């Protein structure tokens, strides 16, 4: 088993909590893991990404090579497109369709979404709306996105849910349950459109 994942978004959106849950589940599975993060200046509203590598064999490079990623998981549609050079020809893009508008020259959203749809393997979803429908707060939107990526992760759905429960356990049962609801909402959405 080997999965190379690029997590993308805008500084402050919370891509690292997605990485934390996947990492937790991967470690329980006994997988090797490397996760390169961006700290520092970019965290102030700039583009951020994290390279997450999972494998049943030891992993060498902290960075994913171009053309090597199985999956791009992005909390922002244009940010998903920023890393397509890293995507395998048949890799998946799982991304929120909601733009994060903090720059004056953000491109036309319809064109951005059209470019994402040009990739055969994509899941485009409104993570905030799905979180709301699932009765979860807007902060759980990243967990909806995580849920939508589960079918492509190579880790069982149930093991991912257990990972969510462990990561949020210290915040209490209510938070665990809303986050699980958010993950399930994303998961079922992805299954329905795949």
């Amino acid at each position: 088993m080997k999965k190379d994942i690029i997590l993308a978004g805008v500084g402050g959106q919370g891509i690292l909590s997605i990485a934390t849950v996947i990492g937790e589940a991967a470690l329980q599975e006994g997988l090797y893991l490397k996760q390169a993060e961006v700290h520092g200046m970019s965290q102030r509203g700039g583009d951020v990404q994290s390279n997450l590598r999972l494998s049943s064999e030891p992993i060498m490079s902290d960075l994913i090579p171009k053309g090597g990623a199985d999956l791009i998981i992005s909390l922002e549609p244009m940010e998903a497109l920023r890393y397509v050079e890293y995507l395998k020809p048949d890799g998946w893009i799982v991304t929120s369709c909601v733009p994060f508008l903090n720059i004056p020259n953000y491109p036309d959203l319809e064109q951005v979404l059209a470019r994402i749809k040009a990739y055969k393997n994509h899941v485009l979803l409104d993570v905030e709306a799905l979180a709301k429908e699932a009765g979860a707060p807007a902060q759980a939107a990243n967990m909806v996105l995580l849920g939508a990526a589960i079918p492509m992760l190579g880790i069982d759905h149930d093991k991912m849910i257990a990972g969510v429960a462990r990561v949020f356990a210290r915040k209490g049962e209510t938070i665990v349950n809303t986050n699980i609801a958010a993950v399930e909402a994303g998961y079922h959405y992805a299954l329905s459109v795949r």
Partner: protein
Amino acid sequence: MKHLLLGDEAIAQGAIDAGLSGVYAYPGTPSTEVTEYIQLAQAKQPSGIQCRWATNEKTAMEAALGMSYMGKRALVCMKHVGMNVCADAFMNAAITGVNGGLIVLAADDPSMHSSQNEQDSRFYAKFAMIPCLEPSNQQEAYDMMAYGFELSEQLKTPILLRVTTRMAHSRAVVNTVEKPRPQNEMSMPKDVNHFILLPAFAKRNYAELVAAQPSFVAHSEADGHNVYVRGAHPEKAIVTTGIAYNYLMENYDASMGCSILRLTQYPLPAALIAQLVKDGAKEILVIEEGQPVVEELIRGMVPSDVVIKGRLTGDLPRMGELTPDSVRKAIGLDPLPEHAPEAIVVGRPPALCQGCGHRDMYAALNEVAREYAAPRIFGDIGCYTLGALSPFHAIHACVEMGASVTMAKGAADAGQHPAIAVIGDSTFTHSGMTGLLDCVNANANVVVLISDNLTTGMTGGQDSAGTGRLEQICYGLGVPQEHVRVVVPLPKNMDEIKNVLREEIDYNGTSVVIARRECIQTLKRHLKAAKKS
């Protein structure tokens, strides 16, 4: 025990487990998390490790040397440019030598993700003639702390530990020991004259340091951190340093049969390099993160007909960090099939947070500055450097910690008016105070605008050394009390802030305006914590 740790955290845990007594540091990306991890560990389970932030890298280095003087183990942490700040203490610590183990961690930032240059700290180790360790993965980073402290105490020298951004900020599973080694007992140096660098003593010390060089090399050759594996086709050889090995192995195919020398300890192991040549190396590719340090040195260690390839020959990019892709190309492999970049994607530069006090400070400053024909505003290092970008375009210089104050003074000396320095509170105490004293002594016609957000913001909100005492510091340096003005940077105070700025610009002498409002990131955290309790 197994932990999922950042490289920085592995270094911190390694230091704790190796019997650390004090960590001394000033925050700086990508080194900050080392000290933060130790602070968190001490908050959870105190074991008497001193871990308070230092005012700058020089005070940190000196305090660590004092800890070492007393026989205990000390760690100094900084980003690469911090090495410049502590260079005086660092270089001379190589001459005094150490008593308790002393490790200096320098976290380099090739590609300048959060820095103003990509200087390579390995030059400092060579400059000071001390050993340098450069771990290639998180486990090695952890293990090298115990080794480094042992080596430091055995050789009586500080050790430089060099990492780069990808090592510092990448997570992997690290196996740690069950129980930390106890801290050293306090003990005086055996020969106190070693720490008195009068020329007579310093000459003797330096001669000892020079004489010790072969033993440093012997450790590089024999301690097992530098690994040489002869290949089936040894005419082609590859030398890697630190994490460059990982990029090689990501792409390497055993059938290539190159001889591989994997370096993680300096000075260079001369015997292993000689062996490479003896085994038939005709071409050596040097893959190293940072500047071409080894590539240059190795030229003087092999016969002139051996071809050396690397960053200087264009086989690898001359600047910037390595990637699996650039290394793949350097070893002659075709790139993996990849998608073309999407032309629709535009840049998303970082920006000051919405609601940040620096924003209101710049809004007022820009309006006032426009009233003058040719204002010059000298910026400094911190979040507020982002004032150089859209929408503010407010500063005309940013060089290094504290330069705003003294560059403004130099500009005023040259006849510039208005000459304004913009500096954060933490940067001001780090390196701005001495410059302000120069201004006061010359009564230079400058305004020093301290944008005080009560924290070290850019690195994530660490304590700032002068919080609550900035006015007293300015008074103490001799700025007249009536020219130390405090404003609250909020939109509703815009007229007042502008008036204060105008008055102090028009005053012919040194003045300070403190724009004080808490960083909104730390404010959020404080409010959340208050709600909990």
